[in-house]
């Protein structure tokens, strides 16, 4: 891979990773372990969106309940239609449009290992990429204790993605949309925290959860050795972290019983050697705000809302030295908001808005068919409408806790894409040409 290509990847923050669909994050082994139906931990009856009880389970180190064989399998299939065909095939094994795909089959090692110790580990096979990799790794030890007469959990987590430890799921790939089209043109300009490092790093995080209300976390990440990345099937896209990347999270939750709300802060600092060689780095400083709200009522008819703001400062010393760009300092901001309603924890509708904007750089972001930018701006905005059906996942469901299923239909409309509404890529493609109908089926065993 050339320096320019790699710099472009770091510039656009690893779009392939970001745009890839998430694994189907529902893990029935947890249900078998705890005796609880999926709806206890996930509003809507299917992961990954967590209820306060689900947050508590995650913070408890996935270790509540009895020891079982902690294995699950999930699979996701989809159909993707964009308003206009892409200029080239969406992948080596797919066409330019109207693609059916078995997105992934995921094997999970997810459950209690020892008292207070549990895992959330996924090995994913991607059908479009014909490739298996260690997708998600989280092993947590959580010690319950009392501080100042209040219940608390002190935890330590080994994981492979900043943000993946967040029980509020505001900034990682676990934020809405949990299912998204993979075989579509790629966006530029996604903050690094939104998954630019996922899978390629190893981190150790410590957290405190105090009185079911205050959450504080700090962690450090280093790049995994490229030979290890080869072994676990992960492509080395980000380069090497110089020293240690730091991650911090602070949040406050108020649980009213039938309602719960939270506000929080997040921050991350990373310096990357894109070529893994000594010398100048590209530095990223991310900070963000989030707020969440859930009306859970009697746990049947639920409203959930999330809003996040994330800002990233970039200092591209490496890119400047390599001649990739003349502009050292970049800014990138994004806002996302979504509201969901679930009836009987079965029938769901979600509406979402997203907007991201940043520094214009015509060297870094060049015209290119479908995925480039004519204007050099990383600005993208649009909306998502999703309807989904989750017939199982309740205590009374057939085959509970052995089977869960979600069928969904999603429409993504773009106001802007990679910097413009019209002819955004410099080859005549409009933002609305990327409007996407995405039908998906997720199953979990």
């Amino acid at each position, binding site marked *: 891979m050339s320096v320019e290509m790699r710099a472009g990847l770091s510039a656009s923050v690893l779009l392939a990773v970001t745009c890839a669909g998430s694994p189907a994050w529902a893990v029935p082994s947890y249900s078998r372990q705890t005796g609880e139906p999926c709806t206890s931990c996930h509003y809507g009856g299917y992961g990954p969106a967590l209820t306060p009880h689900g947050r508590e389970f995650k913070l408890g180190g996935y270790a509540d309940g009895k020891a079982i064989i902690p294995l699950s399998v999930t699979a996701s299939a989809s159909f993707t239609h964009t308003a206009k065909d892409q200029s080239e095939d969406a992948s080596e094994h797919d066409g330019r449009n109207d693609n059916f795909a078995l997105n992934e089959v995921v094997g999970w090692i997810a459950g209690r290992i020892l008292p207070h110790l549990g895992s959330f580990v996924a090995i994913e096979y991607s059908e479009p990429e014909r490739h298996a990799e260690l997708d998600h790794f989280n092993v947590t030890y959580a010690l319950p204790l009392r501080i100042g007469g209040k219940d608390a959990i002190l935890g330590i987590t080994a994981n492979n993605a900043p943000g993946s430890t967040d029980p509020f799921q505001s900034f990682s790939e676990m934020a809405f949309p949990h299912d998204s089209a993979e075989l579509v043109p790629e966006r530029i300009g996604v903050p690094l925290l939104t998954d630019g490092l996922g899978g390629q790093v190893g981190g150790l995080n410590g957290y405190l959860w105090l009185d079911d209300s205050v959450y504080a976390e700090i962690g450090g990440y280093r790049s995994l050795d490229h030979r290890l990345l080869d072994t676990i099937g992960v492509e080395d896209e980000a380069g090497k972290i110089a020293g240690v990347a730091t991650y911090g999270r602070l949040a406050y939750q108020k649980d009213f019983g039938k309602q719960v709300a939270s506000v929080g802060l997040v921050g991350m600092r990373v310096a990357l050697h894109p070529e893994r060689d000594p010398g100048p780095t590209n530095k990223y400083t991310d900070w963000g705000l989030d707020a969440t709200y859930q009306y*859970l009522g009697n746990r049947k008819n639920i409203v959930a809302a999330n809003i996040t703001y994330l800002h990233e400062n970039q200092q591209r010393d490496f890119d400047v030295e390599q001649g990739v760009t003349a502009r050292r300092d970049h800014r990138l901001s994004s806002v996302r908001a979504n509201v969901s309603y679930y009836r009987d924890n079965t029938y769901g509708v979600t509406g979402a808005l997203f907007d991201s904007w940043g520094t214009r750089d015509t060297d870094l972001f060049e015209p290119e068919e479908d995925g480039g930018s004519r204007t050099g701006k990383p600005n993208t905005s649009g909306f998502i409408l999703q309807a989904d059906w989750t017939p199982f996942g309740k205590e009374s469901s057939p085959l509970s806790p052995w089977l869960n299923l979600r069928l969904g239909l999603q429409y993504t409309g773009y106001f802007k894409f990679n910097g413009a509404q019209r002819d955004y890529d410099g080859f005549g493609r409009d933002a609305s040409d990327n409007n996407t109908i995405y039908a998906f089926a997720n199953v979990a065993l």
Partner: protein
Amino acid sequence: MRGRTDSLIAAAFALGATALFLAMPLAGLRAAGDHEAGADVFDAYCSDCHSVSPKGTNRKGPSLYRVLGRRAGTVPGFDYSQGMAKSGLVWNPQNLNVYLANPRGMFADGKMKKGLPRPEDRANVIAYLANPD
């Protein structure tokens, strides 16, 4: 003979008075408790951790199927706190009401952190637990 009769009458009276004393608050709770509202309270505040399925499923908390009349800390397969396991308590509407008002007030080492602060919620959920089928 008269003395024995008097004793029997006194014993019967005492027994009756005790039964009435016990029954009145029970009746009061049952009368005050709304079964349907109790189901809603259970779903909202209890169902994440407890099941009332006849299968007797334990979750983060033990099964509450037929909890009234059961000795505390005896559901098979659930790991109780020592305080509850050794209490010898038999659940009835009165002690369940006290427990639900402040679980850690009754069992300091108990696993259940949150109770139901509103008396009507407790009365309703107890009415529901008396007959969740």
